């Protein structure tokens, strides 16, 4: 069988993805109309999935840049997939602009620091207002995503241009190297800034110096598992025949290594806060351990124990079955990780702001009434409800999973459209020969 030069996006695949996108939109609508005032569940789901998938595309770009800078060649044979992931940054920009519009329009109250009444009554928020304010949030988000997209676009254009050049003409490759080297320091600073603003500032009173690395490593593992799944799928339908078990072995090693790296950061953050025992810091984990026990402990099991013990052996990284299983588990696991990063802060802020109307602050644990309502709304998913269980917040409900699937389908649709635009094998890449003959054993 002759190898297809270009990916052909069949209508069957499109229809399947459209179906899941429809499901996602449907779930969004149901959530929106059954939600409380200020729609915290709707907006937190929107933020969660926007941040998760934008992060994945950012990490794809970062991977290309770091590997090119390190003279790495083995990824050349499948680098088009990462280039396609990175193009999603333009969608990420639009999604985050919607969050910004919602913030200025007062459609949501995700961020405690964006609520003028709260800031006026809160010294801590006043102290942080030079960084946590709407103007800076908007500027950093738009500039960062704009710059990232510029690099993503530029490197992909150069990579496509490379294919047209004569053999031995490395002018485009040299350009890619320059852009890659320039991107790395920019990525280091901007990724931390956006993680602080998008995710960490949801708990505006709390901060952790490790948080940016922790969230970024979570993106990293998600991106790697998604790459493995995408490549295995595309191979099974007849593309990427030159991506061999050796490439999967190295991707598996990355998945294994970065899962441990994630655990290391997770634990370092947890242990320092536990050991320091400062009330302002421990409240974050106290809340998670008391109100989100399944997610809190499940997070470690799914994202550390599973990949560690499955991928420890050599041969499990070389078999499709174990790789698919681990990648799928870990991918969902890191979505749950972001769920746990985002939802507690949003719920807390929501109760604080609702408390203002009643003439005082609502206390953290005073959520029994809300939980009963939300559980009833979700149509009985909350059978195991305890007094603090809030469906869609303390555990993902079916509707939240539906939204996730919708975003996932949207992401894949966008990526496959990008992938279909150019030839799959970057014949002009100087490392393509090395990559095809890649051997790890």
């Amino acid at each position: 069988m002759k190898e297809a030069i270009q990916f052909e996006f069949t209508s069957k695949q499109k229809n399947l993805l459209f179906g899941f996108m429809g499901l996602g939109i449907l779930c969004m609508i149901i959530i929106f109309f059954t939600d409380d005032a200020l729609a915290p569940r709707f907006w937190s789901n929107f933020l969660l999935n926007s941040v998760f998938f934008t992060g994945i595309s950012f990490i794809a770009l970062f991977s290309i840049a770091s590997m090119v800078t390190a003279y790495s060649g083995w990824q050349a044979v499948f680098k088009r997939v990462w280039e396609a992931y990175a193009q999603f940054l333009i969608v990420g920009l639009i999604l985050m602009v919607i969050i910004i519009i919602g913030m200025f329009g007062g459609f949501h109250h995700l961020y405690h620091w964006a609520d003028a009444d709260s800031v006026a009554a809160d010294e801590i928020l006043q102290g942080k207002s030079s960084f946590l304010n709407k103007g800076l949030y908007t500027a950093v988000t738009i500039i960062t995503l704009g710059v990232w997209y510029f690099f993503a676009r530029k490197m992909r254009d150069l990579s496509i241009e490379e294919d047209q050049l004569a053999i031995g003409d490395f002018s485009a490759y040299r350009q890619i190297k320059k852009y890659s080297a320039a991107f790395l320091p920019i990525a280091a600073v901007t990724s931390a800034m956006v993680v602080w603003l998008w995710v960490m500032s949801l708990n505006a009173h709390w901060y952790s110096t490790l948080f940016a690395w922790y969230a970024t490593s979570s993106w990293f593992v998600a991106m790697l598992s998604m790459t493995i799944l995408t490549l295995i799928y595309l191979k099974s339908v007849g593309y990427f025949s030159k991506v061999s078990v050796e490439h999967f072995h190295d991707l598996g090693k990355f998945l294994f290594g970065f899962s441990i790296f994630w655990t290391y950061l997770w634990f370092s953050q947890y242990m320092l806060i536990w050991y320091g025992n400062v009330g302002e810091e421990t409240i974050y984990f106290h809340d998670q351990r008391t109100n989100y026990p399944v997610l809190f402990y499940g997070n470690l099991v799914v994202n550390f124990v599973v990949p560690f013990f499955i991928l420890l052996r050599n041969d499990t990284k070389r078999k499709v079955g174990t790789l698919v299983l681990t990648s799928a588990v870990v991918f969902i696991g890191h979505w749950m990780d972001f769920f746990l990063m985002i939802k507690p802060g949003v719920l807390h802020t929501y109760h604080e702001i609702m408390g203002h109307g009643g003439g005082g602050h609502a206390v953290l644990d005073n959520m029994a009434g809300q939980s009963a309502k939300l559980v009833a709304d979700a149509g009985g998913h909350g059978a195991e409800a305890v007094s603090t269980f809030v469906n869609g917040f303390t555990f993902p409900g079916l509707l939240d999973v539906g939204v996730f699937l919708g975003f996932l389908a949207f992401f894949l649709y966008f990526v496959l459209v990008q992938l279909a635009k150019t030839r799959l094998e970057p014949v002009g890449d100087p490392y393509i020969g090395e990559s095809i003959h890649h051997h790890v054993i």
Partner: protein
Amino acid sequence: MENKKILFGLYDDEQILLDAVKEAKDGQLDIYDVYTPFPVHGLDPLLELSESRLHIVGFFFGVVGALTAFLGMTWIFTDEWPMIIGGKPYWSVPAFIPITFELTVLFAAFGMVFVFYAVNGLSPRAHTEVLHPRLTDDRFAIAFDTSVSSNEEISRLEKFFERSGAEVHIKNLK
């Protein structure tokens, strides 16, 4: 152990070595061993060597290390000599994790080194005979055990070395 008469040919390039090994395999020659100064990609599958089991040893030493550290600290801090440190409970799991990790790594590393030494008969006084000094530098060798070979067989091996461009040597190994 009785003496072995080893006939070996030196090559100066790993690609030529790989081709020669392939040819020897095709010609049903019984290779005693292949010596290289560094790991050569693709040699192990050619020689049909099975994967090393050293890492399995490493895993079990790691488990022993983890249990030693964790159970040891649990026993010391809850039963043998309980101490209040920083107002934390006696059984403070997060504080035990770094030491558990360290002993896991220590046991796994040392365990693998010692097992490797034991399996290969290495010790501070052990003497290993090297076929040719340049095998530790920039030469590659295919060796045949010719202790019981007939002259015909030896001349066949010598012809093989001549064809593949090797420098032929004979050495007795104790």
